């Protein structure tokens, strides 16, 4: 994997929702469990959390002839090329690795939550105890050691794969064509291409919490391309963060606290 721009391919037609990936992620990244309740779903924790970087979302839909389909979607960071979180981060805590993935330098994170507001996929989560944001870094520590991410390693069905960007994209299109019946590829056409690509057996719009046309929010473009070059953050991250917060505080409010004790309460 060394020296390659990587893409993780998630083929949802092969996912059985065993959730091995969800657990393996916690194991590799030393993320504690939260106390949860069954809220009438197999999905748990109910959402991504500072300590849950990937999550299988469960969804029931009625297809043709009243046949029920149970959809599973592995949610987590999409590792955008045009990454809003990186653009908006005042301290460069978020950055692109040599693999094209988006990693976090926790020493630099000041907990400003700008990335939470900016992310078109609603991925980063804030922990009030450490005052930092957390998210998947595509197991940067493993990639550097030439090992696949923990989720890919744990997947028993081949629903998760990782490899060179072009090869994975080609594989995705081939698989979607094989599946037919409205199957699509998701990810390569948005935000200059994500480094996580889905093969979706259904149309993207069918999946909950998956934006149909994700893009970097307009105000961020203002910040990144107009204000940031003016050197307004010269005095350090604090003022920068304040400006970012001001610029990006649109209709979507950041989640104030997604810490341990709140997770999963229903």
């Amino acid at each position, binding site marked *: 994997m060394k020296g390659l721009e990587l893409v993780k391919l998630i083929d949802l037609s092969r996912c059985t929702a065993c*959730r091995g990936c969800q657990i393996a992620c916690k194991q590799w990244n030393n993320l504690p*469990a*939260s106390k*949860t309740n069954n*809220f*009438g779903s*197999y999905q*748990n924790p109910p959402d991504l959390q500072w300590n849950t970087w990937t999550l299988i979302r469960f969804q029931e839909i009625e297809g043709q002839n009243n046949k029920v389909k*149970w959809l599973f979607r592995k949610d987590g960071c999409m590792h955008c090329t045009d990454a809003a979180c990186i653009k908006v981060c005042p301290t460069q805590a978020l950055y692109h690795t040599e693999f094209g993935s988006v990693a976090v330098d926790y020493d630099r994170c000041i907990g400003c939550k700008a990335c939470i507001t900016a992310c078109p996929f609603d991925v980063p989560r804030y922990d009030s105890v450490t005052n930092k944001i957390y998210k998947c870094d595509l197991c940067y520590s493993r990639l550097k050691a030439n090992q696949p991410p923990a989720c890919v390693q744990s997947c028993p069905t081949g629903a998760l794969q990782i490899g060179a960007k072009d090869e994975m994209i080609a594989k995705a299109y081939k698989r979607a064509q094989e599946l037919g019946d409205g199957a699509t590829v998701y990810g390569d056409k948005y935000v200059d291409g994500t480094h996580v690509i889905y093969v979706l057996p259904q149309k993207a719009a069918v999946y909950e919490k998956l934006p149909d046309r994700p893009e970097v929010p307009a105000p961020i473009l203002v910040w990144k391309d107009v204000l940031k070059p003016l050197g307004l953050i010269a005095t350090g991250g604090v003022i920068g963060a304040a400006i970012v917060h001001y610029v990006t505080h649109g209709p979507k409010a950041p989640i104030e606290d997604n810490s341990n004790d709140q997770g*999963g309460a229903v």
Partner: protein
Amino acid sequence: MIKYIIDNNLIHEEYVKYYTNASFIVSPDFSFNDGLFSGFNQETGKYNKATWTTMKDEAGIPVRDYTLQDPQCVYQMLKKHYERYSLDVVSSVTGVSKEDLLTVYKAYGATGAPDKAGTECYALGWTHHTVGSQNIRCMSIIQLLLGNMGIAGGGINALRGEPNVQGSTDHAILYNILPGYLKMPTPSLQTLAEYNEKYTTKSSDPMSANWYQNYPKYSVSFLKAVFGETATPEDEFGYSWLPKMEDGKAYSIMHLFDVMLTGKVEGFVCWAANCAVSTPNSNKVRNALQKLKWMVNVNIFDNETASFWKGPGVNPANVDTECFLLPGCPTIEKQGSQANSGRLIQWAYQAANPPGDALSDGDIMMRIMDEIRALYAKEGGASPEPILNLKWDYRDAQGKFDAVKCARQIAGHYTKDVIIEDAVKGTKEVNLKGENVPGFPKLMADGSTSSGNWLCAGTFDQKGVNLMQRRGKDDPTGLGLYLNWAYAWPMNRRVIYNRASCDLNGKPYNPKRKLLEWVGDKWVGDVADGGWPPMANKEKGKYPFIMKADGVGSVFGPGMVEGPFSEHYEPMEGPLEKHPLSSRRTNPAVTIFKSEFDKFANADAKFPYVCTTYSATEHWCTGFTRWQPWLLEAMPEAYIEISEKLAGELGLKNGERVKVSSVRGSTTCVAMVTKRMTPFKVEGKTVHEVGMPFNYGWLWPEGTKDDATNLLTPSVGCPNTFCPEFKAFMVNITKA
């Protein structure tokens, strides 16, 4: 499906004629009438199987009609038996639409083409019924009709679970067998000669290999492995030291707790099990446990069985049972063999040391048995021989249990030098004392060989190399056989009865997927099921199903307890008052226990919903995974899956707490309202089905208000195996 296959002539004709007993002639005394086969005794509830036979000629060879036209032949009897199962009847009884049934029938029936394969993979969904074995039996008939046994991609495949189900069955965790599926002795078989005589099958047909004619070689080698040097011909190799099972009695887990409830059981060793959660009718189980004087549990966490004395409704002051909990360790903390669904025995290595005082099963057993042996040596006792004569040297240099030593004893070795000279061929085979026996064809009945489990003979080669450790990835067949990866019993054969994949001349039915082929004077491909030539060779050829006395697959299967053909019976508790086809609603051969806890409520308005049970992916069996925070986070508490329609009728919202009750007990859980459950019509009546996982109990997680799903289930099961009916019973649901 059987009727559809016959009506549409989808059978693999040559296979059915020559490789099954479809052409055999059934005894004229055999009959089937109104849900009962001939020979049923109404008082005992058991069958006398004397009429479930097929005819033999004066020479003792089965009479056959290869045209399959004789009205008394198995094929015609089969056709007649399943005539009642029309599409309308099956759809009405099962609630599956005719359209869906036909889709499955067509797809599966198409595998009757000689070059097509169909496989049946099943698990507890089929076995957890009072007709569990008959469910599998029914599919076996289908597989034989379609020629799907003994071929690449065929077979009846039980999906064995992580608890090493295949391995533990091979090594006789069940009460009715000895290792290698040898039969358990009974008091009516007083001598080894009587025992061997009874279980050594006979055949007068020269074309039948009748492999079980070798039975004494395996039983004697087993005794040599258990008792070592003390097993001598003079002592019948220690046969009389083996425990005996009373004739006609069963000792399943359900029988055990039924007897325990009467106070007749003093002590109970509960090893790696959580019976207070896993065994049906948990109230009965938990009451029975209170009758014990002592109980020893071996587990990796505390559980509802080990702590039954402080369970819901139990006052510890009133319980006299002395309880011990010994810390064991799971598979990753010990090495040993594991067998999977394909009988592939793979060596697994220790990944971590057990924490604290925890020990492997082997070490715990060694320590307990050492104490017992010391006591017997000191005090004597009623029957000290079985204990003191036991071969008991499975320790390494450090005094710890040695799994390799134990595995080697299971595999087998020569107990003395055995030299076999063949003057005609001019060959001389030298086998030295202590060398491993390279396969069960080399085992002997004279005490010159020892093997703890004849099926495992060959897991070590003669030089002592552990073949279960092999990891060869070459596969010249291209079929995924991987003959150099670990070891599959028997004899490293990957597909048993593989000679049935070829025609009478030994040519593969599917030339594109050659599992085996007779080339020149030998079989090429998988390890052949015996080296004899194919059947076209009238002099030396053999039938393919070599473990069957007649050498063929049993379309007519008299080995079953409740009939040689499968028949539909309703569950012990169901929504129907009557059987749709006969006056016998349930399996006639079922054993009904008589305790105060054994209650049934069939077609009872008080318990109107069909309930089924299963496991959540995130939890292991009775849920010792509940102690693992990540798994508990993912699947935190008990739930019941309910259709939107039924939830509407009950006024339930998704996520609300409910109480679920049967005539035997009740528990609480979360209602999961789902589109995946839908009502269906059975005999014109709307039936609501609900489903619950069985992974939860009162002990953990802390503060849980819920308890075991098996508080609801009945102690009744399949009369062949006593596998409980966890998959169908009746409940009521109310808001908690």
